[in-house]
């Protein structure tokens, strides 16, 4: 469904992504784990066209995304929940959700998605009219995810959804990710919380300073000695 081939990304002269290849199949949850600065966020931003790649390709459903203007990617069914939520603080919860459906024109379908999102995130319905900037961190994460779902994506890229959340909220967010996946949406998950990420993922890739150093079945990686030592704190 999504294939990243020999990706190289630079920030000026600094090479952030050295040579990264991986693939995501339909229906999977794929985790991309690694320490701070390993290049996880950069990879997601390159996939959704926010950062240009120096070399390599991002193929989504047979189309090279590098050739598509970045604002047209979401309409193709690829939604990105950025690191740090990035909700629009001056817009209400409801308006933020509408922004998620910006490229969709069928009002009834959008209304349908809205019901769906409110069902998955009842808190958002309670706070419908509240300005997004006044929400708590956990609520903002829910909003960012709900907003992405409003585009009715086939695949969502989630960047550090657990960042800055309490353990209970982390559980909740990961439960929601699993239910999004069960409802038929493919998930590409970037996480520093490797333990949680590996526990829900099908497969995972371990990223270190711009390179993939390990890949495989998530359960197997969980038992891998070096992964345990470096990322699981055991």
């Amino acid at each position, binding site marked *: 469904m999504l294939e990243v081939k020999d990706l190289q990304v630079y920030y000026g002269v600094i090479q952030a992504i050295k040579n990264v290849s991986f693939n995501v199949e339909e229906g999977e949850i794929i985790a991309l784990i690694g320490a701070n600065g390993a290049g996880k966020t950069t990879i997601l*931003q390159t996939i*959704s*066209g*926010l950062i240009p790649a120096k070399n390599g390709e991002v193929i989504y459903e047979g189309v090279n995304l590098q050739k598509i*203007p*970045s*604002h*047209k*990617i*979401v*309409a193709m069914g690829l*939604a*990105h929940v*950025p690191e740090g939520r*990035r*909700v*629009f*603080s*001056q*817009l209400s919860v409801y*308006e933020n959700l*509408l*922004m*998620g459906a*910006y*490229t969709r024109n069928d009002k009834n379908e959008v209304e349908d998605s809205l019901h769906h999102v409110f069902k998955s995130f009842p808190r958002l319905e309670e706070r419908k009219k509240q300005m997004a900037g006044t929400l708590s961190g956990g609520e903002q994460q829910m909003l960012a995810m709900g*907003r992405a779902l409003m*585009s009715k994506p086939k695949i969502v890229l989630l960047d550090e959804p657990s960042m800055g959340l309490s353990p209970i909220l982390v559980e909740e967010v990961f439960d929601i990710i699993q239910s999004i996946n069960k409802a038929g949406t493919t998930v590409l998950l970037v996480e520093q919380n490797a333990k949680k990420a590996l526990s829900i993922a099908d497969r995972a890739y371990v990223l270190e300073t711009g390179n993939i150093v390990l890949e495989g079945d998530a359960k197997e990686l969980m038992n891998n000695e070096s992964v345990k030592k470096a990322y699981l704190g055991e």
Partner: protein
Amino acid sequence: MSFISYLINGISLGSVYAIIALGYTMVYGIAKMLNFAHGDVIMVGGYIIFTFMSTLGLSPILSVLIGIILCTLLGLTIEHIAYKPLRKAPSLAVLITAIGVSYFLQNMALLIAGAESKSFSSVISVPPLSLAEGRLTISGETLVTIPLCIIIMVSLTIFVRKSKTGRGMIAVSEDKDAAVLMGINVNKTIAITFAIGSALAAIASALMFSTYSNLSSTSGAMPGIKAFVAAVFGGIGSVPGAMIGGILLGIIEIISRAYISTQLGDAIVFLVLIIVLLVKPTGILGKKIQEKV
């Protein structure tokens, strides 16, 4: 009674500043740049309306409409040629370019229309209103300017808050990358903002030159700078801020001209800017600017 008359004139002048300030503030909010050529678009608008009305003899309303259309196109062209290529450039480069565009427009006007200033005849034919047994007269220009300013403000606020495009503008002004992820075309949104700002400049032009009839290649510069002061005064990036800043500035200018000194009117306006920047750098309605790391 004369104080009320000054106050009304101040509100009227301030309304014009407010309409111009909208162009500054919206462009700043969305493109994060100061379009210092905005005042010169007003001057060009003045020449366009003057040409169609006084030289070619078209009706005032038609001339103003043509002025609005051509100024909108001018704004779009400036954005496309001068600013769009600099989207990722440092803000100083953009600022210098804006000053360059400003000089370009002034000198083009000088070249085409000549150095001699023109006398703009009013586009407004509303008769003046006489109140309090003739002791208070409100000019036709004022009678049109103030309500028009209110209509513009209200419709613009509704457009920004309620329409899809308007909300897209808020999204772009707050977070360009997040807006792109929603599928918003940032370049198109910036272009729309320039179009709206330039159309408003043409309206401001018609209103301003109807009251202050002297039209030359530099006559957009001073109102442009004052409207910029108004935008900063009200809080740059804020639409209601532009309204409040503009009107307050107009009142301050007229009142200080009347009671303090005619010559020092402009100086007092800029003194206000300095005081505002010292006391509340974000302006009356301005939000704290968060630097993203």
